């Protein structure tokens, strides 16, 4: 917000703004909140101290407890807003998101569900995690997307493993890539219509196929052993579209 009584239209704020969120035209200073990234440069350079900030909501954080006793927290972006990364960043820092679901019990595992792809919000979700679980499918699409995300894991220095979903629909190229890249394939889930139906109905794979329970427990144990036994683990699961 600009204090018009103090502003001298010097234009310094518009000059430093890399996002063109300010324009000084004639006698007016225009502010475009949708373009603002909130870097604070304009208020620091204003020689008159005429600029102040106000919150501009771009999304909503919420939290609750699932029927199974897990805390579930999410960030939801408002329609028409361009930037998801600040919401991911805020969610990671929001204390209620990590309050124990049952008072007195410590949280020792944090699972983050990353957006698909390899863009900024994905990196922000992965940053700070102890382990990355990359979910893919044995198709050219799955391989393509996996090849995008693996270098980020390497750059962030976070150990990673792969789950091949919909095993059986495609070819062996994903498995070959994992071997070449030194990525362990921790689990394979076959393509079955009953799984697709269950997921569409909002049920989990383990609810639809209880025989997978032990395999998921083993998966988690493997990951915990890779990281640091008994330490709190932040696990980020990333993948291509809808894997």
């Amino acid at each position, binding site marked *: 917000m600009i204090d018009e009584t103090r502003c001298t239209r010097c234009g310094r704020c518009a000059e*430093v703004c890399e996002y063109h969120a300010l324009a000084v035209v004639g006698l007016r200073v225009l502010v475009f909140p949708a373009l603002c990234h909130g*870097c*604070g440069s304009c208020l620091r350079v204003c020689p008159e101290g005429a600029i102040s900030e106000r919150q501009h909501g771009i999304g909503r954080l919420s939290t609750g407890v699932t029927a199974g006793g897990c805390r579930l927290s999410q960030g939801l972006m408002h329609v028409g*807003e361009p930037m*998801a990364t600040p919401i991911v960043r805020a969610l990671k820092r929001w204390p209620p998101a990590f309050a124990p679901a049952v008072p007195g019990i410590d949280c020792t595992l944090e699972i983050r569900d990353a957006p698909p792809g390899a*863009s900024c919000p994905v990196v922000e979700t992965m940053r700070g995690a102890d382990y990355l679980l990359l979910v893919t499918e044995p198709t050219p699409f799955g391989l*393509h997307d996996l090849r995008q995300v693996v270098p980020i894991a390497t750059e962030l220095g976070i150990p990673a493993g792969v789950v091949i979903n919909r095993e059986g629909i495609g070819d062996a190229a994903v498995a070959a890539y994992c071997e070449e890249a030194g990525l362990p394939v921790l689990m394979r889930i076959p393509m079955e219509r009953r799984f697709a139906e269950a997921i569409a109905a909002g049920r989990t794979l383990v609810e639809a196929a209880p025989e997978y329970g032990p395999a998921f427990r083993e998966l988690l144990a493997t990951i915990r052993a890779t990281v640091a036994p008994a330490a709190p683990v932040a696990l980020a699961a990333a993948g291509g579209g*809808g894997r």
Partner: protein
Amino acid sequence: MKQLVVLSGKGGTGKTCLTAAFAHLAATGPWAEQVVLADADVDAANLELMLRPRLLAAEEFQGGKVARIDPAACTACGICETVCRFEAIVAHDGRFAVDPIACEGCAACVHHCPEGAISMHPELAGHLYHSESRYGPLHHAGLLPGQENSGKLVALVRQRARGQALAERRELVLVDGPPGIGCPVISAVTGADLALVVAEPSVSGAHDLNRTLDTLAHFRVRALVAVNRADLRPAASDEIEARCRERGVATVGRVPFDLAVARAMVAGEPVTANEPEAAASRALREVWERVSAVLRGAA
């Protein structure tokens, strides 16, 4: 010239498979020689995997600028770290450096460095490609891992496709759009003549669809909806279609769950070309007939 954008509320709904089928059906039907393709899903640029085009040209795409600290001029005063709101200045053994992934390019550190040791540099963010596919020219792009700014790249891909369509008097630009509702989506839909939203009958499908339709309404782009894998939950598909009717959005058909789609993907072919008589292919032909009728009507 018409621009049709194919979208979905989230990834994995089969959007790209449907776009590839449309490319095949358009180019082998009355729109032959009239199609320009654009893969605007630059975060997961998969359309080329199904069309296996011949690459004609590639060029570098510079993304946003990021700050760089000249270690020789830096006195390690730490002011940059205090002004950066994006945690992009990292301290290492008393020295400071910029984490290019976290840097938002605001240049606050540049303006505040008392030594003038920080400057902004454009970063190579990815590549723009121009290719020739069996079904027409394809404009696509690849982002380097971890790069942002896909909204700008989307705008460039669309601009190239539109430019070629105008120059060669081609009538249809078919855009494979990004999933979700963020910046790249906005960039992909603004100014389009028509959007086809691929919905899924999943629990979150109706919710994802609503957000996409809100975005399209916000940008005043006319929307059509097709339900993919509709038979996995027929009741949910009914509900999606009912919601669309309430909103005044036309639905253009249902595509069944069909392993032929995955086989086509592995073969690098649109399903309508790979297995023309598969259930999904038959359904896709009907969907395309309806969409192209609307496109012609919008002429």
